């Protein structure tokens, strides 16, 4: 079985309160030098059968219609090699 990873991030122009909260906390914890933090979601999908173009196209569609709301989010799909 292969693993496909879908990363979903808020579009750059959309407010990311979570990322901001993390970034604001960092200096207090003694971590300097991080100019920006964005927080998103990572989906790890275990795919049965071959991860061919057709499968990736389907996962792409799934990401577009379900995993992400493209009004506010961008996503990327990538094959992660063999699942552990």
């Amino acid at each position, binding site marked *: 079985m292969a693993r496909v990873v879908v990363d979903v991030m808020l579009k750059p122009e*959309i*407010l990311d*309160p979570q990322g901001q909260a993390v970034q604001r906390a960092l200096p207090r914890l003694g971590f300097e030098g991080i100019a920006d933090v964005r927080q998103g979601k990572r989906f790890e999908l275990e795919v049965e059968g071959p991860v061919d173009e057709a499968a990736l196209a389907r996962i792409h569609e799934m990401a577009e219609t379900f995993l992400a*709301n493209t009004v*506010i989010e961008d996503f990327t799909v990538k094959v992660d090699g063999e699942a552990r």
Partner: protein
Amino acid sequence: MTLDTVKHAGETPDTDQPWAELGLKPDEYERIREILGRRPTGAELAMYSVMWSEHCSYKSSKVHLRQFGEKVPANDAMLVGIGENAGVVDVGQGYAVTFKVESHNHPSYIEPYQGAATGIGGIVRDILAMGARPVAVMDPLRFGAADHPDTKRVLPGVVAGIGGYGNCLGLPNIGGEVVFDACYQGNPLVNALCVGVMKHEDIHLAKASGAGNKVILYGARTGGDGIGGVSVLASETFDSTGPAKRPAVQVGDPFQEKLLIECTLEIFREDLVDGIQDLGGAGLSCATSELASAGSGGMRVELDTVPLRDSSLSPEEILMSESQERMCAVVEPGKVERFMEICEKWDVIATVIGEVTDGERLEIFWHGEQIVDVPPRTVAHEGPVYERPYARPDWQDALQADDANKLPRPATAEELRAQVLKVVASPNQASKSWITDQYDRFVQGNTILSQPEDSGMVRIDEETNLGVAVATDGNGRYTKLDPYTGAQLALAESYRNVAASGARPLAISNCLNFGSPEDPAVMWQFAEATRGLADGCLELGTPVTGGNVSLYNQTGETAIHPTPVVAVLGVIDDVERRTPIAFAEEGQLLYLLGDTAEELGGSAWSQVIHDHLGGLPPKVDLGREKLLGEILISASRDGMADAAHDLSDGGLIQALVESCLRGGKGARIVVPDGMDPFVFLFSESAGRALVSVPRSEELRFTDMCGARGLPATRVGVVDGEEIAIQGQFSIPLAELREAHEATIPALLV
């Protein structure tokens, strides 16, 4: 691109401008040119276009809404009326209460979670801006057919968004509505209400005065979200292509808003602001022009000082951005330092962006050059006003002639029993606890009543037990059948709900959800509904203190049912005297107050059993509603009733089932002589309530009703583990509970 300055605009009168794309009509653009004596700059055009949009200017509805100000009942409770961020009423003991209901319909369809969340955020800031601590929220909601696949997307997202935002702010959710109807399929209605409490002397207004006073923007940074949101999302139908090159949906940050609330309340406590305004639709355009317009003098703003999240924003975009969680305050120079300290304490960014001038213009600068020079009133308060044509639709007669009273009725007691189960299990009549359990109803520790009670009630003074109650109601089916009566029925039901809890109704807020005002049939519905509501408020003695209009709720040619949602606020001197809906005391007597006629038009029964909408809605008698209210309030105050539940959709049987399930006790019911059992159970005649009276109080109670001329019929007794309708059928509580509670979870999980 060169900056479009005021000077440049004067020199280039013939430059083409995208006024049409921004939603302006040719004559509106002409008027702007007339006002300014030149073409507007890009920034001015941006401001006028958002502020003159339907959502901000109320250009189609204004002529009708005027009645709320003209037909004002004598009521000295009103401290601040229509026109401010929210109305304010005096509830005694030096307390003032502000409340308002608003819509966030279209954004919630596109992005249910964030759309609904920012709907709560927006209304809470309105309440805060009046000087009040927000103390509760409510959420009247309407979705498409319960079994439609898209409802599975929209409803859970909306509910999670309302909960996610409201829970995080620490505001108890004390009530609302959930209605399903195919007419809302592409146009769910997400209305949100907030209640706030303050002392009289804390009331604040949105006005800028005192030359030299500083204008401070505080809260979140301004980003590129929600630009064009106002004009595109709230004013136009979806298929029209708007100017939104940036996303028109905003993401809310409830944590930031919580800080904004606490910070603002601390600023009020130290009396540091002269005028204050929240930033909602139309962002800075709205806040600056409204503050300046309502005050004396002008205002000068340096737009470069606005803290940005995205440095690539143009000045037009900064003016239009609807980034959430921002407020604008006018502060005397001597108080600025302390203001800033408090903001710092709460980690809230605050920036002086300008000052009040002794001129008459709103002037905005960017990189040292002037890009806006306008009379603020022309932006904020003197927008276009339309007398849209309206006409009673030609289908109205046929609809009313399709009489629901003639629909086939159950032939046997067994069939009647089956229909009872079917109605109480139908999505609109079923328990909504799957939804309302996602809302915190306990936070702040003052919740006296919350869902599924008739009204939400909170204590506002721990020493004296003074409290307020709020209920919201609307019935699109009734209103479709007869808009004038439908609006009055919504008012009557909401009024009745407040009174049934033991509180004295004081004031009204409303959210008018309709289709396109460009359709004369819709405009007629709107005109009739506002007339009905205004007349009703006059008769009941409860002024309208504010509200909101949401138009263009339609898909193609098809509008939603006209859906005025009415919120009634009441006061109760001692919350210990509240009346819950639960029938909990075995042996108590059940009295039906009011008259039951054969009225099935628009009823739950006609919808569930026959999928039918036709005929006339129940008749309204507001004099009777008032009398019923007085009786319910007296019964509560003098301890004559232990429980009361108003009758509305679903009729007597629905109220009975809810009260029995809530109390965990059954009832034995006798059908009054000469009454048809089916009509008795399912008719939706208005002006009725079911009351549980201790035997020791029976005489006193019936004497009171008799003396005041309110029909009171003894219909049964609280008893046992089932609801038994004598001579007809009985249903065990367990079976009713299963039917009533299983429906919504099954639809959504």
